[in-house]
């Protein structure tokens, strides 16, 4: 252990003597984290959807006596997508080339069907292929849902006018034809003026019950249109930028880059410096050398992870962010950082042993770390193969451990599971690195 510790101290000293390299190694994952954030933000931005107007939508349309400004209405309901008016041909071309993710076509006769208020007109929707098509479909559905909500009010108002006509009587129109309705109130008065036979009383009872029932038609119609309503009670909780997921991912991403690249580079550099033979002839065994790189990676992961967590926590405390920072959970985070740093260090040592040269090892580590991180960021439910692949890599388990350690109410089960994963992966990669380290002597 003393000899391992001597090598770890030497590596730390060498790292301290390379401030530029260390700075780059620190800045790089932060830059990548920002880029990932930007990409994530982009993926949440409004997709571009083509609107093909084959019905020559007018500037305004009257439905149920309510006037709609078409452009204003489209703007109101398309908050989640960016609607662009295109010709049918242009829309198809842009859909093929991926410039738009969907085409919404307003077919001929759409407005007249809508104004008739008897049948439901249909919008035609074409989606692009690919992983985001389901999300676009949801957003187009949200667009139609918003449009329907606007129209429902007009439909309900119109239907209620008919109900009022049935209740109180009077003149109106139906399917464009004028009608004159006696109404329940006037019918009741006519019956009251008639001799009160049993059959007349039965009719009066029916009219009485019908008036009571129809008096509640407005609420019933609204309830039918919206069986469940959403009541917004004000914004609570953190912004997504300060969420538990972002904090856990940022820490994991940073230590993944650092631990992997440092372990790979420092093991391979023992050969570059021609020192590996001097060490391996009895001073430091290859096993101890690999172990030293794992310890170095774990120590750096611990220092940086804690620094990021503290910086994050200070931002949250100073900003008075909802929920605050769970400072009492830092000891759990420390355990996770050591385990994750060790597992990543073992993987890095394996890469260093296989690459043999420090430059190649750093390049290989860089090439390997990006897919590891991106695989871990893809939700397993969306792309199951990505989930399977990331299961055998430490990044995903590190994220889960950190998130659970910091924010789960009862983290123990998840922590134990992820700790076992990290230990097992670290052990496997460590053994492979030890076996591969023999290549450094060749």
């Amino acid at each position, binding site marked *: 252990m003393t000899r391992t510790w001597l090598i770890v101290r030497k590596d730390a000293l060498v790292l301290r003597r390379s401030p530029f390299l260390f700075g780059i190694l620190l800045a790089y994952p932060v830059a990548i984290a920002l880029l990932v954030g930007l990409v994530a933000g982009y993926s949440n931005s409004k997709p571009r959807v083509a609107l093909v107007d084959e019905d020559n939508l007018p500037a305004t349309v009257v439905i149920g006596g309510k006037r709609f400004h078409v452009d204003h209405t489209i703007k109101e309901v398309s908050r989640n997508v960016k609607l662009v008016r295109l010709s049918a041909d242009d829309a198809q071309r842009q859909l093929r080339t991926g410039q738009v993710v969907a085409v919404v076509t307003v077919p001929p006769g759409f407005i007249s069907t809508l104004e008739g208020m008897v049948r439901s007109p249909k919008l035609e929707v074409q989606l692009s292929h690919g992983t985001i098509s389901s999300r676009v479909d949801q957003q187009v559905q949200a667009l139609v849902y918003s449009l329907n909500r606007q129209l429902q009010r007009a439909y309900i108002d119109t239907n209620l006018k008919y109900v009022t006509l049935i209740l109180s009587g009077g003149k109106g129109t139906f399917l464009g034809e004028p009608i004159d309705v006696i109404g329940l109130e006037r019918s009741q008065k006519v019956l009251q003026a008639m001799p009160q036979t049993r059959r007349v009383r039965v009719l009066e009872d029916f009219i009485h019950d019908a008036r009571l029932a129809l008096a509640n038609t407005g609420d019933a119609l609204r309830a039918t249109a919206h069986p469940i309503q959403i009541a917004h009670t004000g914004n609570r909780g953190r912004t997504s930028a300060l969420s538990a997921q972002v904090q856990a991912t940022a820490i994991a991403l940073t230590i993944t880059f650092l631990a992997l690249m440092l372990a790979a580079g420092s093991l391979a550099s023992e050969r570059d410096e021609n020192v590996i*033979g001097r060490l391996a002839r009895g001073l430091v065994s290859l096993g101890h050398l690999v172990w030293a790189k794992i310890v170095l990676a774990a120590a750096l992961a611990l220092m940086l992870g804690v620094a990021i967590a503290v910086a994050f926590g200070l931002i949250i405390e100073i900003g008075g962010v909802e929920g605050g920072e769970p400072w009492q959970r830092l000891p759990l985070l420390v355990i996770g950082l050591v385990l994750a740093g060790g597992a990543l260090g073992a993987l890095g040592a394996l890469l260093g042993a296989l690459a043999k040269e420090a430059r190649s090892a750093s390049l290989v580590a860089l090439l390997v770390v990006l897919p590891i991180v991106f695989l871990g960021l893809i939700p397993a439910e969306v792309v199951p193969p990505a989930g399977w692949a990331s299961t055998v890599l430490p990044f995903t388990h590190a994220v889960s451990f950190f998130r659970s350690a910091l924010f789960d109410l009862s983290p123990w089960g998840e922590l134990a599971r992820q700790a076992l994963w990290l230990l097992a992966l670290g052990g496997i990669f460590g053994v492979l690195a030890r076996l591969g380290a023999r290549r450094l002597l060749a």
Partner: protein
Amino acid sequence: MSDQPLLAARGAGRRFGETVALEAVELELLPGEGLALVGPNGAGKSTLISLLAGALQPSEGRVERRKGVRVGWAPQRPAQYGRLSARENLELFAKLEGEADPEEAAARLLESFDLPGAPKPSANLSVGNRQRLNLAIAFLGAPEVLLLDEPTAALDPEQRRRLWERVDALREAGGAVVFASQHLGEIERHAGRVVALRDGRLVFAGTVDEYDRPEADTLSA
């Protein structure tokens, strides 16, 4: 002085994949002995020294070391950490060699090899100074056997003289040295026996007197 060899290669050979770097070699190194390895570039001298040092494991045969014998090794290409100073390198390897007082051992060798004590990365030292540091590290841990691969290639005459003084003193104290060299004068002065290698094969083993000068010239060509 025991006749039991300090170090011996028993059919030790080494392959790198399909390439045979050194065919099986039988060799014994006795106390007080100086053994010179000669041969052209790529003959297998460095591989044999690495095998004797334990820096490489033999693909066949074995290397035996008398119990308790300590071996110092200076490879042909300096083996030290470029970002550490000469003193830091010496202190680190002194600790790894188990020196009782690593700082004192480092200071002694710095002075003895006339190395700069300034905290300057050893990568920035001159070629000669880096080779001196390489040799100084080999003397850590009070070795009885020295394995030196082209030790004087980058040294000036004064440093060469001082190195051989140390080597001869070690031999007189019962130690032994194996060195690879292209300098026949050094071989004649500091070796009792010569082993010649060519294309990974041992082609000659005998005393310096038996070593035929024309043959040596051919081997070293």
